[in-house]
């Protein structure tokens, strides 16, 4: 998918008028319920509430997500079996999204009765109350005359029998998954009070082959692993990608000419340019939040420093000048500061400086080494790799306080933030064979899970919510 396509996405359209007639009589088949699931029958039996930064009771809410309905089951390029089957697929994605972030325990469409189209705006309350559902997600798919699809999404409070929020989106058939992510974001945001994040993408490095002949390819995927696409062939090693904030470009390292160099790859034109014309090796690319600058690290005579260059072209500015290794860097959300790593003190530690390189000061003082800092999009936390025996993902405040280690494995590295600053992805390397995989963890460290990728995966870079 390219940027031109994205602009076709019609954005958010509030559906003020729903075309279905009100239906007072419930479909009798819905009242004839199959056996309810145990987890829905008795939410208390699932053990204690897991600790969370969102330490509220809504985490254990029973959320029912039945299949989305359709006004008429018609063919669509989005699903070989038509809009009715597409409605089921969309609800499955919403269910998977909400389940996989670990904060909800939703029940999905495959365990629930299927509402009719008119019931989307007029839920069969007794059915859902009978299932102990506290929240109900409804939705529909409607094929439009122009070939696009309208997807509606509704969140209801079952106990109060009222609607909490609704939105609708018009999407091209090949972008139908985005509607599912938008609906997931709507529900997540309404229930948690947090900003959305599902409708976003991830760039990463796909790894295949044995440790001594590893093939590393640049690849991209949706936040849930769908729409996977390889960008490079694997002929030359690719490393450390970063999406531009508008998703039009990816900065990454390639050994294409035999040397490690940063290239800016344009997703639409599939062409790439060097970040800077230099014979020196360049690595560790990072975008500024406004997409106008790239930070990169360059080694001259073995000494690595951090530079900033305008994406549109122009002179590079050197930001660090110590004899140590100064590398990486991540802008604060307002673009005024940069957090980076340096071994000027004798070991890898984390430092903060102004965006022009002034006022460099160390912020990590808790023993061990610390590298790969990434500033949260919310600005309140810095995620990094803590090296103290094992390599683990940790967070601290931008002042270097309240350090908390979130993971426990042998080698976790390279955190990247969800657009809402509430979830961190990273990659894990297995001892011995060196197999890599992408994982994500929330800020409690409690909810950790592996992302499904077609092959081994490292160097994840989570982009912002899609425009």
């Amino acid at each position, binding site marked *: 998918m390219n940027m031109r396509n994205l602009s076709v996405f019609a954005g958010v359209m509030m559906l003020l008028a729903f075309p279905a007639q009100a239906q007072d009589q419930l479909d009798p088949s819905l009242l004839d319920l199959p056996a309810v699931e145990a987890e829905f029958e008795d939410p208390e039996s699932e053990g204690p509430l897991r600790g969370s930064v969102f330490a509220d009771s809504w985490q254990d809410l029973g959320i029912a997500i039945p299949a989305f309905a359709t006004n008429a089951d018609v063919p669509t390029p989005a699903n070989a079996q038509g809009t009715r089957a597409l409605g089921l697929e969309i609800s499955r994605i919403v269910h998977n999204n909400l389940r996989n972030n670990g904060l909800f325990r939703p029940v999905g469409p495959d365990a629930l009765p299927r509402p009719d189209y008119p019931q989307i705006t007029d839920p069969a309350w007794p059915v859902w109350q009978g299932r102990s559902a506290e929240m109900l997600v409804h939705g529909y798919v409607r094929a439009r005359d122009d070939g696009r699809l309208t997807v509606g999404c509704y969140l209801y409070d079952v106990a109060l029998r009222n609607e909490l929020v609704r939105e609708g989106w018009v999407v091209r058939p090949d972008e139908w998954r985005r509607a599912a992510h938008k609906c997931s974001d709507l529900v997540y945001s309404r229930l948690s009070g947090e900003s959305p994040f599902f409708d976003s993408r991830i760039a990463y490095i796909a790894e295949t082959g*044995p*440790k*001594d002949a*590893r093939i*590393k390819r640049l690849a991209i995927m949706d936040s849930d692993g769908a729409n996977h696409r390889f960008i490079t062939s694997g002929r030359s*090693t690719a*490393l*450390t990608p970063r999406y531009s904030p508008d998703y039009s470009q990816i900065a990454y*390292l390639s050994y294409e000419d*035999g*040397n*490690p160099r940063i290239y800016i790859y344009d997703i639409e034109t599939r062409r790439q340019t060097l970040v800077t014309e230099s014979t020196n*090796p360049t*690595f*560790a690319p990072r975008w500024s939040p406004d997409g106008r600058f790239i930070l990169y*690290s360059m*080694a001259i*005579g*073995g*000494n*690595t420093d951090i530079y900033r260059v305008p994406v549109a072209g122009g002179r590079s500015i050197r930001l660090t000048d110590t*004899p140590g*290794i100064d*590398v*990486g860097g991540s802008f604060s959300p307002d673009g005024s500061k940069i957090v980076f*790593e340096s*071994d000027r003190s*004798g*070991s*890898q530690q984390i430092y903060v400086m102004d965006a022009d390189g002034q006022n460099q000061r160390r912020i990590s003082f808790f023993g061990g080494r610390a*590298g*790969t800092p990434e500033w949260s999009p919310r600005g309140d936390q810095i995620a990094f*790799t803590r*090296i103290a025996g094992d*390599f683990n993902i940790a967070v601290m405040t931008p002042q270097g306080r309240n350090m908390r280690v979130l993971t426990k494995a042998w*080698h976790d*590295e*390279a955190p990247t933030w969800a657009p809402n600053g509430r979830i961190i992805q990273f990659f894990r*390397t297995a*001892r*011995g064979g*060196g197999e890599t995989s992408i994982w994500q963890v929330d800020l409690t460290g409690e909810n950790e899970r592996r992302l499904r990728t077609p092959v081994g995966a490292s*160097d994840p870079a989570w982009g912002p919510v899609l425009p």
Partner: protein
Amino acid sequence: MKNIVVALTLTSALALSACQKKAPEVIPQAPQNVAPAPTPTPTPTPVSRVAQPGSQAHFSAEMSGADTIFFDTDKFDIDSEDAAALRRQAQYMLTYATSRATVEGHADERGTRDYNLALGERRANAAKNYLVSLGVAESRLRTVSYGEERPASMGSNEAAWAQNRRAVTVMME
């Protein structure tokens, strides 16, 4: 040929892995009083007889392991053992005066990726600078860092990591 290089590397690494090195404060200066490299009298081996002088095959056979030097964790200083190996490399390059070489810097897997790239660059440059100090023209040497991307030893243990923290000199052909 690559297999031979790896095998030689492993042998010498095993001998070195127990040695503890001290951290320098800054990039070590090239030694000031280095005797000019004597013109070597090549002692042909079966391999070097078939390999073209100045080729990687010839160089690797002549060095028998001295094409690689090893480093401690996060370090890049040249100790006496490294210096001896680099002297042999320099002698070779002074003997075969048209030869050109790439010094490859490597790191072990127990580092973060970007830092390892920078570290490999540091190690390659430490070796290169030493060769230059011995009289090899800088224009004949190139460096490249592979970070942790090209391990020589596949294990996840101290012995393997010690073999992977290295700078390898490879003839350009």
